[in-house]
């Protein structure tokens, strides 16, 4: 039942808005709305019950194990939320002067400095509001760098075929053509193909490391050498930063730019699809182009750098500077972990991933890259199972939902047929991982014995399998009263 179907004319949540208001008799009639907006007329209790009820139809980290590869669904500590929502922080206006927000700005500055340390980059801006937004900032800076040198023949961004779709889409948004290069059988970038792809047209390379195949690029230093020698810059997609936190730093490896996903590595909530935060870090030569604002410290006082401080900046990415509340949550998380705690993140993310991979292999599942160490995630391929039983990775994923586990990422990366990309994260216990292995095994047995049960899953959720084709063909995007 939709909220609109709970409505009764004249019903209101009387405590929540002025009960009466003076008429706007100074406004011309032609500027006014003639009919009220079609919002529901409901009581406060109606609203609370309806949306509490909806929340209960969701899977979430707080209720289920969520081994969604590439998404880093780790526990979101509650203190991060409650401390970012202190009333003074919530009430602060974005255009209020710096002297009214030194407590907030100091926290932002310290987070910015910690992100520099974590990545080994020369400078950081936290203006981008999501991973893809950070990618945009990164590639725009690469372009600004070449343009400033008059090096305008560089029109191509090189992207490995295993990359997230945001990489090529970002290159297009920055006015670049995309050149895709293949992956070798061990899951590494194909060096020969890279050598053949670079040239005077190369603006840069976008590289996810560890890659979306869940493995560390063994030749990462050489890859960069090839791109740099061709005059291109190197972009580190930090989607999988959780795997290397406190162990290796993109800046030390020689990268020119990196974006981080704080909603992954720094455990800010995913919120059912945002808000995220995608800060960017840069090497010395890209510093002048950082997006604004970022925080400056001058004689112990903090303020935002703007247009006059950074004339070569690629500019603003949002009206008010970024997802500050998300950054506050990340700051609290970083302070609770400390340097040693951050190192443990990668250590235990790797332990959980490699343990889960080992146990699944022992249970008869096929790993896509059995000869490789899992980073913080790994891929199981169900190709053989599909060939034998007709049960697809999608069916398998849906049946896992019935067992109370969120499905791993399916059909990504595109290189591995019938794949499940599995990322357990460091915050899950051994018992949870063991229970997941048991569920995987149970579904596998069902697929072998009663494939129709799996193909028609889920059976125990609020909805059964939904008709995506109908959703796209007969668009129903907005409710209309009968």
């Amino acid at each position: 039942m939709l909220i609109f179907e709970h409505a009764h004319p004249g019903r209101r949540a009387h405590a929540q808005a002025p009960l009466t208001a003076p008429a706007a008799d100074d406004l011309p009639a032609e500027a006014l709305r003639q009919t009220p907006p079609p919002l529901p007329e409901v009581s406060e209790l109606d609203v609370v019950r309806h949306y509490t009820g909806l929340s209960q139809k969701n899977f979430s980290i707080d209720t289920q194990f969520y081994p969604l590869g590439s998404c880093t669904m780790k526990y979101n500590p509650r203190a991060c939320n409650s401390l970012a929502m202190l009333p003074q922080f919530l009430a602060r206006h974005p255009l209020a002067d710096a002297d009214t927000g030194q407590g907030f700005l100091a926290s932002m500055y310290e987070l910015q400095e910690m992100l520099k340390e974590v990545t080994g980059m020369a400078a950081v801006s936290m203006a981008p509001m999501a991973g893809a937004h950070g990618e945009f900032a990164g590639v725009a800076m690469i372009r600004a760098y070449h343009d400033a040198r008059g090096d305008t023949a560089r029109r191509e961004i090189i992207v490995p075929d295993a990359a997230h779709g945001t990489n090529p889409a970002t290159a297009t948004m920055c006015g670049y053509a995309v050149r895709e290069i293949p992956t070798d059988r061990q899951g590494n970038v194909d060096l020969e193909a890279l050598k053949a792809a670079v040239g005077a047209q190369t603006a840069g390379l976008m590289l996810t490391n560890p890659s979306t195949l869940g493995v560390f690029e063994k030749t990462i230093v050489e890859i960069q050498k090839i791109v740099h020698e061709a005059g291109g810059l190197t972009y580190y997609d930090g989607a999988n930063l959780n795997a290397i936190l406190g162990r290796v730093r993109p800046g030390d490896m020689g990268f020119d730019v990196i974006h981080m996903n704080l909603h992954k590595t720094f455990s800010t909530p995913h919120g059912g699809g945002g808000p995220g935060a995608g800060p960017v870090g840069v090497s010395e030569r890209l510093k002048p182009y950082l997006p604004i604002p970022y925080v400056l410290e001058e004689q112990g006082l903090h303020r935002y750098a703007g247009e006059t401080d950074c004339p070569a900046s690629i500019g603003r990415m949002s009206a008010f500077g970024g997802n500050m509340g998300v950054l506050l949550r990340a700051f609290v998380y970083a302070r609770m972990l400390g340097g040693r705690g951050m190192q443990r993140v990668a250590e235990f993310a790797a332990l959980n991933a490699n343990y889960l991979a080992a146990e699944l292999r022992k249970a008869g599942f096929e790993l896509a890259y059995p000869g490789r160490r899992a980073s913080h995630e790994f891929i199981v391929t169900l190709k053989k199972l599909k060939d034998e039983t007709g049960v697809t990775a999608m069916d398998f994923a849906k049946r896992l939902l019935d067992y109370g586990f969120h499905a791993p990422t399916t059909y990504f990366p595109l290189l591995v047929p019938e794949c499940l990309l599995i990322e357990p994260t460091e915050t899950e216990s051994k018992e949870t991982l063991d229970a997941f292995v048991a569920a995987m095994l149970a579904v596998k047995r069902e697929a072998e014995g009663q494939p129709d049960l799996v193909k028609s899953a889920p059976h125990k959720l609020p909805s059964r399998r939904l008709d995506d084709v109908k959703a796209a063909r007969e668009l129903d995007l907005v409710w209309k009263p009968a």
Partner: protein
Amino acid sequence: MPFIPHTESDIAAMLASIGVPSTDALFDEIPAELNCGGLPGIPAGLSEMAVTRLMHQRAAQDGFYSSFLGAGAYEHHIPAAVWQIVTRGEFYSAYTPYQAEASQGTLQLLYEYQTMMAGLTGLDVSNASLYDGASALAEAVLMAVRANKAGIRRVLVPATLHPRYLAVARSTVKNQGIELVTVPYDPATGITNLVALDAIAGEAAAVVIPQPNFFGVLEPVDALTDWAHQRNMLALAVVNPLSLALLKAPGSWGTRGADICVGDGQPLGVPLSSGGPYFGFMTARQALVRQMPGRIVGRTVDLDGQPGFALTLQAREQHIRRSKATSNICTNQGLLVTAATIHMALLGPQGLKNVALSSHANTRALLERLCAIPGVERVFPGPFFHEAVIRVNSPVPDVLRALRAQSILGGYDLGPDYPDLADCILVCATETKTDDDLTQYAQQLARILSRRREAPPCAYKS
């Protein structure tokens, strides 16, 4: 080990299963010379108690102000129920609803949100949100250019648009060879100059129409929309969603209505929070739905024929279309949309209208009091929503600093963005302001300005 549950015996058993002697061995594929050996520059970890104390200190240091700042972000009452429900773990810690059957709560909420936004703006379809109002405008400009069959890569933008929105649109579209042409405003009225608009030569894919505009003034939206349509341009509305409880919906502007509508959803239940996270919204005519960026939810049926919800039209998106996607956007601002949907449901049509009317009335009352002060005058005479521009006879930064010393944020200094308005302040009084708040502001401003006008002390008299 914060948030890591492993016991020593767990670790030993897990290492044995993997067949390695230590966790260090799990990193043996990483070239050894790359190991940074830790993060000595990061301070040691704090307990929850210690970090709570730190954050309370910082929050207290910042304190509270009586704020008359608007300029794109507005203080409104947010019902307690909104964020108590939003921060339920089932909403807060869920992922993007790719697994529809495990995400019906979020998906149904997004469908309700789309319905509310389409209704509020008077247009056919809505996406499930973008980053913020400014980035939504940038995406709308790209969308208008994509929809233009003649391949025109030029969009007209009035100088009365929020300057930050223009800045963001510029930094977003400049690498795609799209030109944003600024249309000057009439200095007497503070609205877009139709004569100047006529004088701008050449074709354009769209005209941006802000309502209310950055100065709080109502633009002649009907005339601007028709002007655009007569020239085969799209009419691209940028609105404050709260104002639409009172003002004409963009879908009803002019003869045919605006084509695309964007704005910032912050006034709908999202705290100011130093600038974000907010959310951008976008609605459009049905014919443009396949050009829309971002997530879109559709209602469908499940295997049993029961209604349910799923992400749809995903063929537009980056994870399918890669370099040919409508946008690189992946994340939206789901949690803020959750807040806005609950907020709009709690306020309802009458509640939202009363908030809009009270904000309008408070700004009217504030203007009356401020303009009664010698040395203060209103700059643009036309109808406004809940913001207005005043001129003061003292340097604006000094006046605002003196008000700040009295814990009042007096408004937005227009000088840096508009050199012609260097002595002007943009003020806003929402429904949250009481009569006492308005009186306090007027009294303090009168005191500050009168002291400024006094002659400097004369040495001979003392």
